[in-house]
């Protein structure tokens, strides 16, 4: 799918002062990223990581001072393209082993807790 950026809206309950660090990062940004990554951070950790990540971004901002208009984007550090494999089936009998590693399995399938709003 093609996703379009959605405008940020103020998040409910963000009463804490939301100062922007030198790297352009806010405490709310860090909380947002943490929640997307399913990480639970304490207030102290939020403060700590906002400072650390802000410093990283501030360093990256140095690059903005350079004129890179003539530099091609580097999508990969190796100067390689078109690494393909042939369309040939390799049978690996990992079915039992994989299901055996799962916390729960049922009828040859992985049994997981419900996520969001799925239909029966």
């Amino acid at each position, binding site marked *: *799918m*093609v*996703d379009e950026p*959605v405008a940020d809206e103020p998040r409910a309950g963000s009463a804490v002062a939301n100062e922007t660090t030198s790297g352009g990062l806010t405490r709310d940004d860090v909380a*947002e*990223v943490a*929640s*997307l990554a*399913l990480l639970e951070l304490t207030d102290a950790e939020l403060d700590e990581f906002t400072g650390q990540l802000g410093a990283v971004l501030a360093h990256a901002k140095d690059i903005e001072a350079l004129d890179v208009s003539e530099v091609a984007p580097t*999508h*990969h550090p*190796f100067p*390689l*393209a*078109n*690494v*393909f*494999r*042939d*369309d*040939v*089936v*390799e*049978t*690996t009998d*990992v*079915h039992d082993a*994989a*299901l055996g590693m799962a916390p729960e399995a*049922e*009828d*040859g*399938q*992985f*049994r*997981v*807790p*419900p*996520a*969001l*709003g*799925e*239909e*029966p």
Partner: protein
Amino acid sequence: MTDVDQPVSSTMLSSWDVASDVAREDSHLPDGWEMVIGLEVHAELATETKMFSPAKNHFGAEPNTNVHPVCLGLPGTLPVVNGKAVELSIRLGLALNCHVQRCVFARKNYFYPDMPKDYQISQYDRPLNINGWLELASGHRIGIERAHMEEDTGKSTHVGESGRIHDAGYSLVDYNRAGVPLLEIVSHPDIRGPEEAKEYVAELQRIMIAVGASDGKFEEGSLRVDANVSVRPSGSDELRTRCEIKNVNSLRSLGRAIQYEAQRHVDLYLAGDKPVQETRHWDEEGGRTRAGRSKEQAEDYRYFPDPDLVPVDPSQEWIDEIRASLPVLPRERRQALVDAGGSAENAALAVERDLDGLALAAIEAGAEPERTLTHVANNLAVDGADELNAGNFAELVKLETGGGLTATQAKTVLADMVETGRAPADIAAELGFEAMDTSELEGMLDQIIADNPDEWGRFCEGEAKLQGFFTGQIMKATKGQADGKVIAQLLAQKSSA
């Protein structure tokens, strides 16, 4: 809704279910409103193996048997691109008039059990195919924004637990589909109504099947459609808030879902309200769309280039080679039959049945075009029709148009030809379908007139329904071998003499 909808069958679109003169606005909205529709079509590619792993790409296997450490996201595994999937993606992109470019894979991150590695490999800012178009039978061109490669997700089945008010339940996940190569074809919002949307998907399906990129089967999930729908005042060029409709599993559902959703938007605007941008699910049974459970935060997939995969950079030679190997596309095949003298409707059917080559060869051998196509449309939806000898087929049509066989006889002979491969004249002779000599018929008719002077008198005075009586008498006398058209001519001649 119109009633031209057809159930989806394994061959899909068993007939040309979309009128060739689809209006630019086929919607049924209140005056002054028009629909703005863009479609995202996911096509599973017809490879032997998955996009990044050598596990089998096959529908219908026992759960979790077509899996491999790579598509299970096991630690230490690395994806390797299936070259065939890239080739098929380029084939379809070229068939859709796209520009093929150097592209990169990106990770789309989300937490959902249908992808065991917690991200789906897709393409984001550098897709493989961009800026194409697809031309509908109406002549309207629908722009293709992009057609990018990605991997399919696994299939999760929610199992409810009865007796609870808030149904907790659980899900069962099958990773057979996880990693199956997909091409996602994103149209511009150029579509103006449900019928046009259906025609677009039907034509796209024909093209992907024709070029061998996908089997295009809705019922096996190898073709899936999401529709972005909004409305606006007719003639305006604004783009209003759109909703993305998922869970549309057939062409018929697609048309219904779009019609429902557009009307919902108009109703909201007329009530002084407006729709919110969201993903909605089509409820086939209820005939309506429903909002999914609202998510507390906007979707943010944190796309970034996948460091495990290097770019795909198709050389011009490779692109040219693939272009040269493309078959003639359905649109051109239909046009060839129309140019040869057939009707658009029958031409479409002939291409649908893959019998246009046979029809064209028969026409080139002197068979009357529309008569030829009518046989294809009405009498050749049978196994073995594709092996029919074009010369024999032409001969049959010539016998019929020359008056040597009636339409009914021709149908019988044709069925025999498909079965036995024999020449039409031999079959007709064996079945006793000798052409009735007109003078012989005339003699019979004179006898019948002499036997039924009263009826004949009334017929000559204009009692038209007696035509059936005389025709029946002659058919009886000839054991049904006379040509109805010739009888009608004879009756007309004699009664006006």
